[in-house]
């Protein structure tokens, strides 16, 4: 392996795993917050409409 590029090439699996974990967790947290907001909004609109 060429010495100059070795660190970059060896980092590939770590980058892949890190990205998969961070993106997956980040998306799960972001959408959970959104869904909570949607529930709150829908319950609020139900209250306003008298249901």
């Amino acid at each position, binding site marked *: *392996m*060429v010495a*100059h*590029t*070795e660190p*970059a*090439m060896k980092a*590939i*699996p770590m*980058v*892949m*795993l890190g*990205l*998969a*974990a961070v*993106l*997956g967790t*980040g*998306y*799960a947290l*972001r*959408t*959970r917050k*959104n*869904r909570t907001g949607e529930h709150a909004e829908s319950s609020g609109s139900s209250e306003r409409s008298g249901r």
Partner: protein
Amino acid sequence: MTSILKKGQVGIGTVLLGLVAGFGGILALYRFVSGIGRVSNLNQGYPWGVWIGFDVLAGIALAAGGFVVAGLMHMFGGEKYRPLVRPTILTAFLGYLLFILALMVDLGRPWTIWHMVIYWHHESPMFEVGWCVMMYTTILFLEFLPVVFERYRLDHVYALWITVAPWIAITLLALFAVALTHSVPWVIAIAGVLVLFELLVRFGVIYRDPRMPTMLLMAGIMFSVLHQSSLGSLFLIVPHKLDVIWYSPILPLFFFVSAVAAGVAMVIVESTLSAWYFGREVEVPLLRDVGHVLCWAIFGTLALRGLDLVLRGIGTELLVLTPQSIAFWIEVLVGLIIPLAILLTPEFADSARWLLWSSVSVILGLLINRLNVAVIGITSTYGETYYPHWMEIAITAGIVAAGVLAYIYVCRNFPVFTPQHPQAKRTPEVGVPALSTP
């Protein structure tokens, strides 16, 4: 705002683009018939010229909007960025197809390109870039398919695609991990996390986007991050040839950060110009948000570049008048200082016109940067010089013109501009009925 063209009408600009693309195509054919030496000034000292610097390095960076907007901003920014997703995916998809075309012209023996599919060199950055581009183009194709399904009312195929596409993405990522790591534990770990995520989505633990599988976006981001940075790794092997102004151990990081900035800038340019061309409203509030992201990306690039130069002790090289130092200052001024000044001025940051100019400046800066790294910053050990042959430039111009023509054609004939957004007004010549997306 009305469209500048009626249905079926071909403008003078389209004719000119067609002529440039046609002429470039003829010259490309001539290159394959007569050999690369007849159409280019490439030599032993400069085997990579304007085709690699502009078409490949800059072209891929400009297509980065596909993962920045369609991926990161859409995944974490929510629904408001949805109107930008399809045009951005189209731009990125066409960009990668044209990059592959340009690479075929540049390669000395293009007919052997399939070798990388079966001969695995997991220690080579070029092998990684090749695989990433192959995989990411497939991902972009999958991401663009809903537009085709909507156009031809293939709702049942759309439903099948929603189910199957995430597993294709996982397979591609796992195959990539096998090829690049040759390590069973790493492959199991990476594939395990991806499969777990998809299963949690399937079982409703994590929110499931009904229109775009999140796994596709994740795969696009992962492949993009890897190859945008690896394009910089390609130049790590020439410390004796690349000027110290640009040669840095963190060159891959520079390539990645600058690609993010250029990708975001490209989204603003493409969105504004296509809005004007197709007679749609420019989505200024949305682009203003994108402008904020662009501002941070430029600031990050500038801070990183400055810190790197200080830590490496590069000072006098920047102050002595050489072609390299002049090229560096032009790159920094055009690509970083001017757009940052525009975006930090409140009156300009709210204007579509100034957002466009700042983005054009960022893109020009990126083009200069990539040409600096690939051509101007390179010193030949054999004493040769290199100036692009006029046919090299004509072929590049032809490829760009073909890309613009393809973009216009697809936008006119497919529902690229999503009807979900209230400002997305359809023009009569598009003629594509709005379908309800599943």
